[in-house]
């Protein structure tokens, strides 16, 4: 059989395309193999226990606080980041004159080019004190009796990390939502105006409703970034360990899966139970990320009934 140029191209393209899947499978497989020792030792407690003790001979590694910490910081990031991002996107498409919308959308996208360690640095030296003075102190003073707002000494805490994550996911959600909103046909806006809708009604009843599946996708991408974001969170979350890391108050030091790995992996020796623990945390993080993405896909196709890009 003669190898023509077309065939060579076809084979090499197939190999390259398959390698994406292969990388995911290999990563998943090695993480699974690497985490066998720790899961064998602690069983389900590895996922649902809270204890943490690295002292040799008394080792206990349970990761529930960090799983919940990841969910808490990501949740805070979405709560703060989604309304801001949608506001930016709506403003850029529906309100801003072109002389304003072009530079602003450029700047918003530039936000995503800022390395995460710089957000961490800024958060460490400046942002955490703003959060402490304007949010943490007032809220704990007046609402401190609610466990969610109970007081803590440190402003390196779950809320500060979540707020920084919010800033970090804004470019993703805002720029995709902007594209989605720009793609809403003008005829829909005109139809809505023609039956006496105000600008606000046109935006929230027609434009956002028409673009909801795309906006949902944008939010999921933002969530994906928030879940996996490591450096800035590791610098700002306070790095609590063990049962005290269980996220109960917004203003307590916590820990996410990603920050736990970033903070701890250097101290472990290869093949130790601790290293197996970090691999297990990595496996869990990968698994949760996959669930978010697969779940988002299911929601988009089932709930919104997206077919060929159009909403039915």
């Amino acid at each position, binding site marked *: 059989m003669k190898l023509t140029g077309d065939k060579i191209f076809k084979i090499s393209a197939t190999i390259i395309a398959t390698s994406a899947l292969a990388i995911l499978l290999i990563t998943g497989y090695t993480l699974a193999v690497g985490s066998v020792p720790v899961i064998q030792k602690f069983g389900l407690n590895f996922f649902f226990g809270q204890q943490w003790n690295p002292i040799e001979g008394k080792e206990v590694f349970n990761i529930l606080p960090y799983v919940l910490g990841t969910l808490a910081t990501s949740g805070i990031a979405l709560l703060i980041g989604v309304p801001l991002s949608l506001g930016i996107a709506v403003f850029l498409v529906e309100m801003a004159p072109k002389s304003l919308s072009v530079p602003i959308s450029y700047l918003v996208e530039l936000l995503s080019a800022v390395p995460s360690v710089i957000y961490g640095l800024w958060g460490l030296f400046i942002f955490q004190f703003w959060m402490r003075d304007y949010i943490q102190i007032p809220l704990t003073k007046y609402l401190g009796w609610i466990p969610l707002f109970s007081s803590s000494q440190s402003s390196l805490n779950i809320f500060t990390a979540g707020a920084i994550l919010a800033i970090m996911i804004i470019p993703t959600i805002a720029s995709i939502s902007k594209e989605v909103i720009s793609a809403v046909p003008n005829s829909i*806006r005109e139809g*809505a105006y023609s039956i*006496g809708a105000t600008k606000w009604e046109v935006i929230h009843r*027609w434009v956002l409703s028409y673009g909801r599946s795309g906006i949902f996708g944008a939010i999921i991408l933002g969530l994906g970034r928030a879940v996996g974001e490591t450096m800035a969170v590791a610098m700002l979350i306070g790095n609590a360990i063990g049962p005290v890391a269980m996220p109960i108050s917004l203003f307590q030091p916590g820990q996410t899966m990603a920050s736990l790995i970033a903070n701890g992996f250097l101290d472990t020796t290869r093949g130790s139970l601790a290293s197996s623990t970090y691999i297990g945390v990595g496996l869990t993080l990968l698994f949760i990320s996959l669930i978010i993405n697969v779940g988002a896909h299911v929601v988009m196709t089932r709930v919104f009934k997206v077919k060929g890009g159009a*909403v*039915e």
Partner: protein
Amino acid sequence: MMTTSSIAKEENISQLKPLQQETICPTAKMQAINVDAWFGQKQILKTVSLTVKPNTVTAIIGPSGCGKSTFLRCFNRMHELVPNSKMTGKILLDGKNIYDRQMDPVQIRRRVGMVFQKPNPFPTMNIYDNVAAGLRLTGAKKDTNLDDIVKRSLEQATLWDEVKDDLKKPGTSISGGQQQRLCIARAIALQPEVILMDEPCSALDPIATAKIEKLVIELKQDYAVVIVTHNMQQASRVSDYTAFMYLGELVEFDETSKIFENPKNKLTEKYITGEFG
């Protein structure tokens, strides 16, 4: 000192400028008085005046780009939604200028409904909600019986029998002609006083067009209808009055029969005999 070119320009303008009309017609439902409109620097309408009588169909004809759609969109203040658009002059609705500062464009658009060139039912809403959408907006009366109004509007748009079992289906699931009648029902549901139609049949097949035309004639029992069309036969079939526009100006406006049988202006004659356009 005037250069020759600027003199020529002056003459040009005075030649083109039609008589300014200021008399207010008391029997008019709507009346446009000396309307000029621009997109950016480009002037689209040049001192256009037109009277729309109640319970009539007024057709606006003219070649593409003559400004007829822009003119129509001035009647419900849709023109101003386009960035960089500008408009001067008056448009009266029951004798009141809709461009007065105390007039709310949202209320104007509820009184002067509009049907667009391409059917544009709301894709995220089902047929029922498409018709009810305007009534559900703020400013609609709370005690309205939606079911009745939706049924009556769809009946009036001669669509009820075709969709009565499919009210929960998306507005975009029906045929193009049905979609356009759905858009007419959507406009009717607000019980407007005037209905503007911007080439409502240009995206439709002949059978659907015939249905819409029949409907337009029926609609004038309750509303004043202004229809923009590039189809002269359509204008002669459905309208009582016809306005011929050319290059942003209103060349001639009269009863449809007079425009088509005995046009006063040479340009009108040339256009309706198909010499250009």
